[in-house]
Structures are given as C-alpha cells and as structure tokens.
C-alpha cells in the first residue's frame, strides 16, 4: 500500500493548497471514516473463514462423488434433538442456498435436456441449478437481474404466456416473517374478542382491523354465522398477513423455500410428498407412480424437512439492510430534504418506515414433528441486525397498483391482476431492477410506474422540481446494505 498512501498524501496536500476550507477526505467513507484496524481484522477473518469453508467443500466435492448431496440429508428429528447449533444450521442453510441441484438430487422430472425458462402451468420450469443463481444482485442472497426473472404459469415455451417475477433480495427476511406473524396474531386476537362481544351482546360487532399502525379495513363479526369480510382491505378474509411473494401469498419462509425448490428445480420436499399421500396434488407435483415420487423421476425424499428448517433458519438469520446517507455534506443536506419529501409526497403511507416488533423470539416449528428451533432474531445471526423498530419501509399490506402494473395473466390465488404487496424498500439501492417484473432499471422509473392507490403519490412526485426529485432519489439510494468485503466466488 505505500504507493496508494503516498498518492493520498499528495492529494491531501494539493487539496489543502488548491481548495482551502474544503475538508472532504479523499475516500467518501459511508460511515464517515475508514474502518478501524480491529473492524478490518474482523471483516477479513469473516471473509476468510467463509472462503476456507467453501474452498474445502469444493475440493471435497471433486474428490468424492456424491459428497455435495450429503449436505442435503438433514433430518428434522436430528434438529429437534439438538444435534446442530444455530451457527451450524446457518452454515448448512448457506450451503443449501449455493447447492447446485442435480439429477441425483431429483432435479426436474428425470428427463433433462435443457433449462425451461417458461414455466408449464403450476408445475414450474427449470430455471437454474441453485438459489444463488438468481439472487446475485447486490451481493450474496441479493436480488435477481432482469435475465434472472422467473416466468410463472406459462405454456412451457412462450414468454408472453407467463407471469413475470423478479427475484427479491432475501436480507432481513426473518424479521419480515416475524412481523407478519405478529400482525396475524393480533388481528386474530382482536377478532376473537369481537366474537365474544358479539355473542355477549347478541348484535354484530364492527371491528377496525388495525395492527402496528396499519389498517386492514373493518370486519363485521356476527354473534353466529359467517363473518362479513367485504370491508377487509389488503389481506385475505382469513386475516393472515402473508409477506412473501410479490402479491403477498406466502407467510412462512419454509413454505417459500419449498415452493421455490419445486417450481425452479423440480425438487419436491418430503413434506409435500407426505401430504400427497393423503391428498394427491397432481397439478403441482405430478401424477407419480406413487406418493413418494410424485414427479416420477426415480428419486425419492428429494428435500428432507430438515432442509426446509435449515434454510428457513439461514434466511431468518441473514443480515438486515441499513441506511447509509451520502458522505458529502452538500449531498447529505439533499438527502435530508429527500427524506422529508418521502413523507410529504405520501410514499410513507404504504412504504411505512418501520413496524415495531414486539417479540423478537422466533420459533421455527416443524411441520411434522412438533419440534422447533428457537431464534433470537435481534441477537443472533449475521450483522447488522437492527432493532425492534424494523425499518423495512412497508405496511405488509396488498394494494391495487393500477392497470399499468397489472400482470398480463391471472395468478394462482385469484388475486386481482393489479394487486401487489407493498414491497419493503430496505436495501433498495442494491436491488435493481425494480417492480415485480423488473421493468424499471432505476428508482425514478419505478416511482413513475406506480398507479392505482399510489397514483396520488406518484403524481405528487412527478410534480416536484427536478432537484426535489433528485433529493428523494438520493434518500432512497441510502437504503442499502452494509459494505462487507468477501472473497469472490
């Protein structure tokens, strides 16, 4: 480094001579200053230990046939028995995320000749071989690029037949899952109180569905009989907040993992197979020859339940995005102005800056054994973790976004084509392109594509001066992830 240091010294001298009063340091460190020696050592140690592990696994996989796939044999019962520490579960989940599924693992339906980027109905396609393959933008566990879009529910060949979905970044997913579960719990509790009240009074009770400052409309609870859910907003009539998927259709990470493995790789979880025994879901899983091999590829137990658990734990313990304003004082002023504009324009109405997490303990419960892994979401896992004011920039509610953004085709759940969950904006700067189909390359383009319930905010943004629009853009670019060096793989 001596060469670099001498250049920096020279520049600082020149800067002092040519621009007296300008005290901007040469490197615009996002935290104001360079990492300390101790911080740097820790970062290098982290990066090196990941690299050492990956390098060893790479040569082991080369040296022993089938070695990679042994990582996929993790039994829920062993997890329940405490065989794995949380760190081990995290590392195993990391391995699953990077694992390239093969025919021996049960990839596809056994007759693989090429990838199939356009899905065939609800069975899915064959998009790539690993989770990491489509979550590459902005770093590990990041978002997908346009080319990595998934084309769901299509005819197996034609792009125009499909519903297009851009891969979301996975950071902070554990806190999102926990927030949604709390909201669901609170709404259910309120509903049961209303039912008691209705039974006691004998008259229907109209209940305001409010939780964490978000209103989901009202529900009418009669003393007996069906609830009137016609005034419920932004959530299904069952009042279960589902924060995953662009339309908000999945509530648990283990289900998200299970579905992704199924539609992107043709890898079927043992939980799905066991359900199939009772209730053969031929459209989603295939005609079998039998319940334990629904896709008839000769591979059974393609994804143990233990893998769903390790991967869900991994995702829950990923780092949380951060806000890092510009370094330059002038840009910082503009950032502050942009932050104020975010509220005054009305963005924050749906992209709520934060939701309060009441209970940071998460129980990753098994589907079949009754066991659970108990995580302390704010205290364990990858740094940074944030705090109980979870700054996700979403109300976790669905909204109608207008015809311009509507899907070309119906989705599976029968939700209107223009309805989408408020996308959490945390980490935004590192997750281009934007919107459900990745159509917007830049943040301003994404804002201007908003319509429906967001039309007024969108128009207010469009009416700002160019400078004010830029200020808001600067603010949104501060929603990012912590800079972390890693060794390229």
């Amino acid at each position, binding site marked *: 480094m001596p060469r670099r240091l001498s250049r920096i010294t020279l520049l600082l001298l020149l*800067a002092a001579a040519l621009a007296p009063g300008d005290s901007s340091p040469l490197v615009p460190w996002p935290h104001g200053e360079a990492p300390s020696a101790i911080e740097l050592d820790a970062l290098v140690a982290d990066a090196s230990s990941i690299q050492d592990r990956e390098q060893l696994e790479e040569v082991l996989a080369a040296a022993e046939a089938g070695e990679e796939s042994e990582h996929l044999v993790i039994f829920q019962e062993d997890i329940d028995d405490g065989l794995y520490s949380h760190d081990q579960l995290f590392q195993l989940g990391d391995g699953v995320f990077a694992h390239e599924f093969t025919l021996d693992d049960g990839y596809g339906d056994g007759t693989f000749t090429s990838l199939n980027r356009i899905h065939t109905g609800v069975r899915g396609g064959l998009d790539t071989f690993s989770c990491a393959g489509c979550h590459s933008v902005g770093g590990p566990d990041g978002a*997908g690029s346009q*080319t990595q879009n998934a084309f769901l529910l299509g005819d197996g060949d034609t792009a125009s037949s499909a519903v297009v979905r851009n891969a979301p970044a996975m950071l902070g997913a554990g806190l999102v899952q926990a927030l949604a579960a709390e909201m669901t719990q609170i709404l259910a509790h309120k509903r049961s109180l209303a039912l008691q009240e209705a039974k006691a009074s004998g008259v229907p009770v109209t209940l305001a569905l409010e939780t964490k400052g978000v209103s989901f409309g009202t529900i009418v609870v009669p003393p007996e009989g069906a609830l009137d859910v016609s005034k419920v907003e932004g959530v299904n009539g069952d009042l279960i907040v589902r924060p995953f998927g662009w339309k908000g259709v999945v509530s648990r990470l283990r289900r998200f993992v299970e579905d992704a493995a199924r539609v992107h790789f043709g890898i079927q979880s043992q939980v799905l197979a066991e359900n199939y025994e009772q209730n053969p879901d031929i459209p989603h899983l295939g005609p079998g020859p039998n319940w334990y091999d629904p896709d008839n590829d000769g591979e059974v137990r393609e994804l143990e339940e233990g893998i769903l658990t390790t991967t869900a734990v991994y995702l829950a313990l990923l780092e949380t995005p951060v806000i890092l304003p510009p370094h330059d004082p002038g840009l910082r002023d503009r950032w502050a102005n942009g932050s104020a504009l975010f509220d005054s324009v009305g963005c924050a109405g749906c992209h709520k800056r934060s939701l309060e997490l009441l209970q940071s303990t998460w129980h990753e419960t098994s589907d079949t054994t009754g066991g659970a892994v108990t995580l302390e979401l704010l205290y364990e896992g990858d740094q940074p973790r944030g705090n109980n004011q979870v700054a996700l920039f979403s109300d976790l509610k669905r909204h109608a976004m207008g015809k311009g953004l509507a899907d070309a085709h119906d989705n599976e759940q029968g939700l209107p084509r223009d309805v989408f969950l408020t996308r959490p904006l945390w980490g935004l700067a590192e997750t281009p392109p934007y919107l459900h189909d990745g159509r917007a390359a830049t943040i301003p383009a994404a804002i201007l594509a908003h319509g429906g319930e967001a039309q007024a905010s969108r128009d207010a943004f469009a009416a700002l001066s160019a400078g004010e629009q830029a200020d808001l853009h600067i603010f949104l670019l501060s929603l990012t992830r912590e800079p972390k*060096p890693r060794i390229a793989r």
Partner: protein
Amino acid sequence: MTDARRAVRLLAPLALYGALAASACSNNETVNPLLDDDQGSAAPLHMFSTELSSDLREQALAALERDAFRREARFLDAAKPGYFFQSTLAPQAQIEAGMWSPDELFQLGGQLFNATFTPEIGFGAHDLPPIARFHTGRRGGPDATRCASCHWRGGPAGAGDAADNAYLDGDGDRQSSALGRNPIPLHGAGLLEIAASEITEDLAAIKAALRDQATSNGKAVRGELLSKGISFGHLTARPDGSFDNTEIEGIGDDLVVRPFGWKGNVRTVRDAVEDALLIHHGMQSEHLVSSASPERIGPFGGDDPDGDGVSSEILEGQVTVLTLFVAMQEVPAMVLPSDTNFALMWADGNNRFAEIGCAKCHVPSIPLRSTTFLLQGRDAGGLVAVDLANDAAEPHITPSAESGELRLFLFSDLKRHDIGPALAEPRADRGVAGAQFLTRPLWGVARSRPYLHDARAARLEDAILLHGGEAQAARDAYAALKEPERATIRVYLTSLTRAKRMVTQ
C-alpha cells in the same frame, strides 16, 4: 502522464463535491463542472483498479474504498442524472493521444461495464419490446440493462448463471426458437485475442509461402497449417494461385481464428463488445450505425436506426474504454490444493487429463510472442496499445522465470470441433454449423459454473459426460475410469481458478 496532471484529474471528484455542496446551499440544481470542461466529461471514479495486493487485509481495505466511491458516485448520479454515464465519455482523440493512463482507461471501461443503460441514453429500440427474454433475430432483446448483471460469477467480469443465458436469434417470444448461450467469463480476453491473431498471422504466412512455392515451382504444394504446436490441417496451393481448402480443420477457409463466442465466430474483443452492447442493451455504437445492416441495427436509418430518439448512443471512445476494460481483465490462476492428499490427487489428475485425451483439444498452454494489445479505431480512428504484461489487471501474465518465455495457460486449441449430436443445435449460428463449437478455454473453469454453451451441465463431470463427436473417445475414456481415477481429474480441474480477490457488492 505526469504526477501533477494525474493529481489534477484525481482531484476532479473533490471539485465536484465542492460544487454540489455550494449549489445545495443556493438551490437544488447542480451543475457538473466536468461537463463544461474542455477535457470532456470523462472521470475515473476510483471504483475499479488494476491493482491487486497479495495481502488480504490490504485487499479488503481497497475493496471497501472502491465501494465507498461507488456509493458516493451513485448519489452524484441521482443529483445529476446522467453523471455516471457521462463519466465514461472519454473522447477517442484523447485516448489515442495518451492522455489517460492504462489504469484510468480500465476504470472508465469498468464504469461503463457497470452503468445502467436507460431509455434516456439510448437503451432499447422503438420497434422492440422494452425488455425481452428471447431475442428477435439479430436485433437482440434487449434483455439486460447492465453488462455486469450477467457477468458476475467468480468475480468481476465473471461468468453468468444458467438463469442469465442469452437466447439469441429467436422470434422474440419462444425459448424454443432461440439459441441458448451462457455468458462466458471475460478473464484474459485481451491475451486470448493476441494469441488468436498470432495464429492467424502464422497461418497467413504459411499460406503465402505455399502459394509462392507452388507458383514458382509450377506444381501443387501441400503443407501443414501448424501454429503454436496446433495443427489446423493441411492446405494445398496450386500453381495457378488457387488453393485446395478441403483439408483445413477447425477454422474457416479464410484461416482467421475467431476466439470469442461459443461457436468461435467473433474475432476481437471490440467486435464482441460492440455486438453485446447492441443485442443486449440496444446501445448502438457510431461505427455500427454507419456500417451495419438494418437486420442488425434496425430499419429507421439515418443516425438513429433503432428509432428510439437517441443518436450517438455509444461514442467511439466508449467502445474503446469498454474494450480495454475487457481486454485488461486478469489472468486466471492455477491454485493447487494445500492438503497433501488432494495435492497428490491433483498430480495424478494432471497426468490423466493428458492420458485420456482431454488435452488434445483443451491444450494446456500455448506460447505467446507479444503481450501488446492493439486496438485499431474504426472510421479513420487511430491505434491504442496496452501492454498487458505490465498494465492489465493483476494478476497479469508474467514470463517464465527460467526461460523468459511467455505462455498462456488457456486449455484450448482455439479450434472449432464437431462435438456430437447431443450438444448440436438444429441450425447454424452466424455461419458455424450446429454441431461445431470452439474448444472452450478451461482457465478459471472452477469459477464459471454451470457449463457448456447453454449451461445445461451443473457440474464439471456432467459437462465431460455430455461431450460427443470428436470428443467421444476422450469422454468414453473418462467414463471408463474407476471412480477414484475420475476424482483425480475433477480435483485437477478445480485448481483452474482465479486469484483470491476481495470484493464488496
């Protein structure tokens, strides 16, 4: 460039911060002082560097520094829309005049490689969809807004995942109509071009010598087309000055080696870069606008053939810096396993790789005469030269300590081969038959999974077993090995990797 001039240039961003800070006090409009500079708007933003320390701690600090500059540049781009793209606008004349150091040119190219192309600066075309997964003929998608979004795996300018495949020359809607192409890693691209052009020179010299002999002796002369130890078959010169081309192997009758593209149909980094900008982003270079057919650039003619309302989308200087960025990419490294048992397996694998015939086409190394990458500007442009042995991204090529000889550990013969019916495509691609593919260089192969032209092989072994045609015998020899012997070849191949490199996002 003198230190003082370099310092002034490096100070430009500081001046910009100052201007922005000042303008923020008065109003929210900012003026990019670089735009008014008669030097043009180009500015290295310190986001890329050709240097790579061998110390991981220094690497980490340097990576974090570059990341800090990247973040600040992104804010500046929001403050002054277009700032980032404009920072790559080095005038060709300045580059030719040597006003930019190789490292600065690398930075400018890197900035373009990572820039987001938007409709405002020429992304897309009037008569194509805003984005399309499958290409429409030779016009392309567009299918991506950044080069880097499909070249990420294994490090900067790396390979693409299977999901990143490009689907060339289709009907715009059906996957089955298009040719799947996995994005290749770009490491060592400049040296690859030099090696190919040296072979092309050698073959041209052989051809000329045969013709001279045939015409002066008055009878046909047959000679071997041999360059760098690789035989491209035989050529017979007739006394009348014509040739019998029927014995030429692995190369077109023009005897020009085209080392880029899975089919080996692109001759230079520049051609590859210009075509990629066109088909993936709808960003049209001045040169293509003035010279290419409407089938490639669109029907609207004039200076805006794609009809998107933007002309001069990519200037000659931008093609130059992007070409140089790609050409100056690092050379992959061979890293032996540190564990003794694995190291012994590696040694076995090294021998077996040759024994079973892999090395016949995947020739481990070839000699190189020169390391000077020459880029001839188009349309009366001048010459730009970069010495890749000194100025490319580290690690760069180094002569042998013993002999001083330069060798390229490429693992390819740069020939095209019939690879059998299983991998063959139903039609030719730009003149290369469906079953013909260039021997893919295996350098860095451990960092560029998945494998084969359409990424159908998740692992190296899957790829080996899918070989056919001219590679059938070698493939069968691999399949006939006992598992522990196969493992040695796999361990050997995992040593073909890239140098450890700290990166951030």
